C-alpha cells in the first residue's frame, strides 16, 4: 500500500493520500459546502508544501485541519510568485472561489476580496454546479527564449475554461448550465501562456467551471504553473523511474512464475508472489493516466478498477505472507482480515475525517503482526518479512506525521521510493530464495532418509549373519535331509527375489508382503525345526503397505516368542472402521508370556521396531499408531492408520 502512496507522490509531486481512495467526492463536497476555511495552520502547511514541492500524504492534514478547525476566514488576496530565473514550477493550491457564473469575473478589476478562499486539492473545484476560481500570479523576470510558461491542470473533474488576464487561453470540455449541456473533457490538460502575456508583473489566472457529474476520485486536483522544459524533464524522470520499478517488479514476478511452473511441488507462495508483483505492474500501467489524458467520462471506471485492484492486492499481499510464513489457519486469518478491511471501509464512510488515517495502516499493521508471530515461531524468512513490513509502516508513518506537520524533516519521494522498492523487492526475493533453499534441503533430506530406509531394509534381510546362519542350516541339512535343504533354499530364494524386486518401493501390495512373510516363515521353520503358519483374516489384497513391516514384526516374533522346535501360528487381520484402517498381527508364542511376567519389555526398541515405525511415519506422517499387548494368550500388535492417512 505504501507503494501506491509513494508511486502517487512520485508521479504527482503534490499528490493525494491513498487513504482517500474510494472517498466519493460528493461526500466531501457535501461536507464542505458551507465551510469557509482558512486556518492559519493550513496556510503554513501549504507554504511549507510549496517549498518542498512534493509530498504524499499531506492531504490528510488538510482534510483533518479543514474539518476539525472549521474556521472561517475571508482572506486577503491569494497570490503566488513565479520567477523565470529561479522557480521551475509552482503549485496553485489556494484559490478565491465564487459560486455562480459571470464572464466578468475573469477580469482583474472585479474585486474578489469578499470571495472565499479554498483549496482545490480536495478533488473538486467546488460544490456541484458552476463556479469560478481565481488567483493572482506575480511573474518575476523575463522568460528564456527557448522556454514558455505553461499551466498544467490535472484531475480537475469538471468542464472548465482557463482565463489569463481576462483572455481565454484554453478549455477542457464544455462548461454547461446543467448536467445535459455539460461535456467533460480530459483528465490532463496543458495550456500555454504566450510570451507577451507572461510578462513581468501581476497577472490574473481564473478558472470558470461547471461540475454536474459526480466523480469517483482517485487523485486530487492539481494546477501547476511552470516552465515547459522543466515540466517535460520532470515527466521524463518520472517516466524513467516508473520504468525502472516496472522492470524490477516484472522480472521478479516473471522469475517467480517460471519457478512456479518449473517446480514439481506445488509452491503456492511462488504464484502468490507472482500475482503480488504483477499487481504492482498493473498498477503502474494503470497509473499511466497520471501522464496520459483520459476522458473524464471514462474516469470513474478506471478509478473503480484501480480501487478494486488495490483492495485485491492488499488481500493477496496478506495471503502471500500467510503462505510464505506457513500459517496454519490461513482461511480464518484471511477472513478476519477481510472483516477488518470491511470495517475500516465502513468507518471511513461514516467518519471520513478520522478513519482515513486508520485505513492505510490496517494492512501494514496486520503484516507486522503476522510476521512478528512468524518470527516468534522461528519461521524462515520471517525476520526479513518483518523488516519489510516495519519499514513500510515507518514510511507510511513518516508521511502521515509529515503531513500533520509533526515532523518537518523531508525526504524526497524520488529518493525514498526507489529505496523502498529496492528493499521490498530484494527482501521478498531473499525470503522466497531462503524458503526455496530450505525446501530443497528438506527434499534432499527426505530422499536421503528414503534411501537410508532402503539400505536398512536390505541390510536387515540380507545381513551376513542371517545369510550365514541360513547357509549353515543348509550345510547341516544337506547330508541328512536333502529334501529339507532343497525346500529351505527355495524359500530363501523366494524371499530374496521379492526383496530385490521391491526394495526401492515406498509401498508394496499387501499380497506381496504376505508372500514375503510366508517365505520367511518357511525359512525359519526349517532352521528352527518347527512348523509356522500364517493365518490371514479379512485381508484386502488391493491395499498397499510399506514394505516389510509385517515381515519385520513376524521376524521379531519368531526370535522372541517361540522356543526352537516350538510350532507357532501368526494371525494377520485387517479391519476398516470409520475411515480408520487397522491391521492386527498376533502370535501364540510361549516365551513372551513368561518374559513379560518377569518384567521384560517385549518390544524394547530394537532395530526391527524402529524400522517399522520409521516406515509408517514416512508413509503416513503423524497419522499412525502402533500398539502391542498380550490379549488373552496371544501377543497382539495393532497398527492403526487414521483418516486421511492414505
Amino acid at each position, binding site marked *: 500500500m505504501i507503494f501506491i502512496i509513494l508511486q502517487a507522490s512520485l508521479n504527482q509531486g503534490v499528490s493525494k493520500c491513498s487513504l482517500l481512495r474510494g472517498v466519493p467526492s460528493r461526500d466531501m463536497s457535501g461536507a464542505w459546502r458551507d465551510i469557509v476555511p482558512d486556518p492559519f495552520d493550513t496556510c503554513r502547511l501549504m507554504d511549507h508544501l510549496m517549498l518542498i514541492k512534493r509530498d504524499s500524504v499531506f492531504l490528510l492534514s488538510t482534510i483533518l485541519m479543514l474539518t476539525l478547525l472549521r474556521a472561517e476566514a475571508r482572506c486577503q488576496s491569494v497570490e503566488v510568485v513565479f520567477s523565470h530565473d529561479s522557480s521551475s514550477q509552482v503549485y496553485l493550491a489556494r484559490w478565491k472561489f465564487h459560486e455562480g457564473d459571470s464572464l466578468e469575473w475573469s477580469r482583474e478589476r472585479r474585486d474578489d476580496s469578499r470571495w472565499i478562499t479554498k483549496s482545490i486539492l480536495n478533488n473538486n473545484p467546488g460544490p456541484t454546479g458552476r463556479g469560478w476560481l481565481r488567483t493572482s500570479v506575480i511573474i518575476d523576470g523575463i522568460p528564456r527564449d527557448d522556454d514558455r510558461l505553461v499551466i498544467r491542470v490535472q484531475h480537475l473533474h469538471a468542464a472548465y475554461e482557463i482565463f489569463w488576464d481576462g483572455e481565454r487561453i484554453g478549455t477542457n470540455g464544455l462548461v454547461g448550465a446543467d448536467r445535459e449541456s455539460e461535456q467533460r473533457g480530459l483528465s490532463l490538460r496543458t495550456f500555454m501562456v504566450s510570451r507577451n502575456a507572461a510578462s513581468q508583473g501581476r497577472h490574473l489566472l481564473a478558472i470558470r467551471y461547471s461540475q454536474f457529474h459526480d466523480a469517483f476520485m482517485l487523485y486530487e486536483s492539481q494546477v501547476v504553473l511552470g516552465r515547459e522544459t522543466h515540466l517535460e524533464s520532470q515527466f521524463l524522470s518520472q517516466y524513467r523511474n516508473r520504468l525502472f520499478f516496472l522492470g524490477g517488479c516484472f522480472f521478479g514476478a516473471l522469475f517467480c512464475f517460471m519457478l512456479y511452473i518449473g517446480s514439481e511441488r506445488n509452491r503456492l507462495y511462488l504464484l502468490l508472489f507472482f500475482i503480488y508483483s504483477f499487481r504492482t505492474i498493473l498498477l503502474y500501467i494503470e497509473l499511466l493516466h497520471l501522464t496520459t489524458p483520459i476522458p473524464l467520462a471514462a474516469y470513474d471506471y478506471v478509478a473503480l478498477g484501480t480501487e478494486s485492484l488495490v483492495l485485491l492486492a492488499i488481500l493477496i499481499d496478506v495471503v502471500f505472507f500467510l503462505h510464505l510464513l506457513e500459517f496454519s489457519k490461513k482461511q480464518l486469518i484471511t477472513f478476519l482480515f477481510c472483516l477488518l478491511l470491511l470495517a475500516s471501509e465502513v468507518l471511513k464512510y461514516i467518519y471520513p475525517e478520522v478513519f482515513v488515517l486508520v485505513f492505510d495502516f490496517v494492512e501494514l499493521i496486520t503484516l507486522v503482526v503476522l510476521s512478528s508471530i512468524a518470527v516468534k515461531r522461528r519461521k524462515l524468512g520471517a525476520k526479513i518479512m518483518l523488516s519489510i513490513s516495519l519499514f513500510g509502516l515507518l514510511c507510511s508513518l513518516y508521511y502521515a506525521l509529515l503531513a500533520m506537520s509533526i515532523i518537518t524533516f523531508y525526504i524526497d519521494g524520488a529518493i525514498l521510493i526507489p529505496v523502498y522498492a529496492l528493499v521490498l523487492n530484494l527482501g521478498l526475493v531473499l525470503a522466497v530464495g531462503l524458503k526455496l533453499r530450505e525446501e530443497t534441503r528438506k527434499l534432499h533430506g527426505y530422499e536421503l532418509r528414503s534411501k537410508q530406509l532402503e539400505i536398512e531394509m536390505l541390510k536387515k534381510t540380507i545381513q*551376513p*549373519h*542371517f545369510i*550365514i*546362519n541360513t*547357509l*549353515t*542350516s543348509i*550345510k*547341516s*541339512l544337506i547330508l*541328512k*535331509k536333502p529334501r529339507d535343504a532343497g525346500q529351505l533354499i527355495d524359500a530363501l530364494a523366494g524371499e530374496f527375489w521379492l526383496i530385490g524386486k521391491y526394495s526401492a518401493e515406498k509401498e508394496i501390495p499387501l499380497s506381496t508382503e504376505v508372500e514375503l512373510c510366508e517365505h520367511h516363515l518357511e525359512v525359519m521353520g*526349517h*532352521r*528352527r*525345526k518347527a512348523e509356522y503358519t500364517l493365518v490371514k483374516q479379512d485381508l484386502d489384497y488391493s491395499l498397499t503397505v510399506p514394505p516389510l513391516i509385517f515381515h519385520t514384526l513376524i521376524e521379531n516374533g519368531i*526370535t522372541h516368542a517361540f*522356543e*526352537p*522346535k516350538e510350532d507357532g501360528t501368526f494371525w494377520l487381520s485387517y479391519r476398516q472402521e470409520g475411515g480408520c484402517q487397522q491391521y492386527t498381527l498376533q502370535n501364540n508364542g510361549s516365551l513372551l508370556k513368561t518374559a513379560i511376567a518377569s518384567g521384560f519389555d517385549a518390544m524394547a526398541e*530394537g532395530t526391527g521396531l524402529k524400522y517399522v515405525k520409521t516406515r509408517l511415519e514416512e508413509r503416513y506422517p503423524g497419522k499412525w499408531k502402533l500398539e502391542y499387548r498380550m490379549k488373552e494368550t496371544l501377543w497382539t500388535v495393532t497398527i492403526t492408520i487414521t483418516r486421511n492417512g492414505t
Partner: protein
Amino acid sequence: MNILILEDEPPIAEYIRDLTSSLIGSRVDRIDIAHTLKDAEVHLAARPIDLCLLDLNLSQASGFELLKHTVAHSFHTVIISAHTDQAFEAFQYGVLDFVPKPIDRHRLNNAFQRFFGTAGGVATSLKYLVVRKKNALHLISVDEVLYFEAQRYLVCIHLQDGRTELIEKPLNRLIQILPKHFLRVHRSFVVDMRFIEIYRHKGGGTYELKLKNQKFLPLSAQAYRFLNKLADQ
C-alpha cells in the same frame, strides 16, 4: 570330557555335535545340546562340563550378558557364530576361541586343539576377567592383576591395590587365555612379569622371586630357567 552345545537352531546344533564327535569323539564322554539358556542351566546343574560351544546372537544387547555369564564358569567357552565382527570383543571377555559360521571342520578342530593345549595359542586379547560374587557378575581388568594363586578348585586373583578376588576358572585353563606377559612361575602361581622386581636361587634347589610390592613368591626351576633365558635376550 563333557561338552555342551548352546545353539538355538536345531539342525546346526546337530551338525556341530556330529562334527565334534567325528573330530574328537574318542576323547569326549558326552555331548549335550541346549537350545535355550534355560536348557543350558539345567544341563550345567546336572553335571559339570569342560567346554561350551556357544552360539551367541551377539548383535542383541543380551548377547554379551550371556557371554559374561558363560565365561565366569570354570569351563572354557568357544564361540561359534556368524557375527565375526564381534570376535575381538568376545576375546576380551576371555573366550578360548571364535569359530565363524558356516563352520569349517579344520577351524573347529583347531579350537579343540587349543583346548587340549596341543595347538599354539595366539596372543589373546583378554581384557576382563568375569568373577561371580553373590550371584552378580563383576568385571576385573586384567591390567589390574598382580598375580594369580591356585586355591583348591578356585583361583585367587591378587590385585595391585592389595584386594583379592576369587575366580572359578582353574589355573591351567586361565593360563590358556591370559596375555603373554603372564608367566606360570610355580604350580600354584601365575604372575604378571612386569611386576617382578628380582628372582633368585635360594640354594638347595629352591627359587624365589620378589614382586615390586615386596612380596615373595616361590619360583619353579622351569620358570627360573625361562626367566634367565628371557634376561639373556
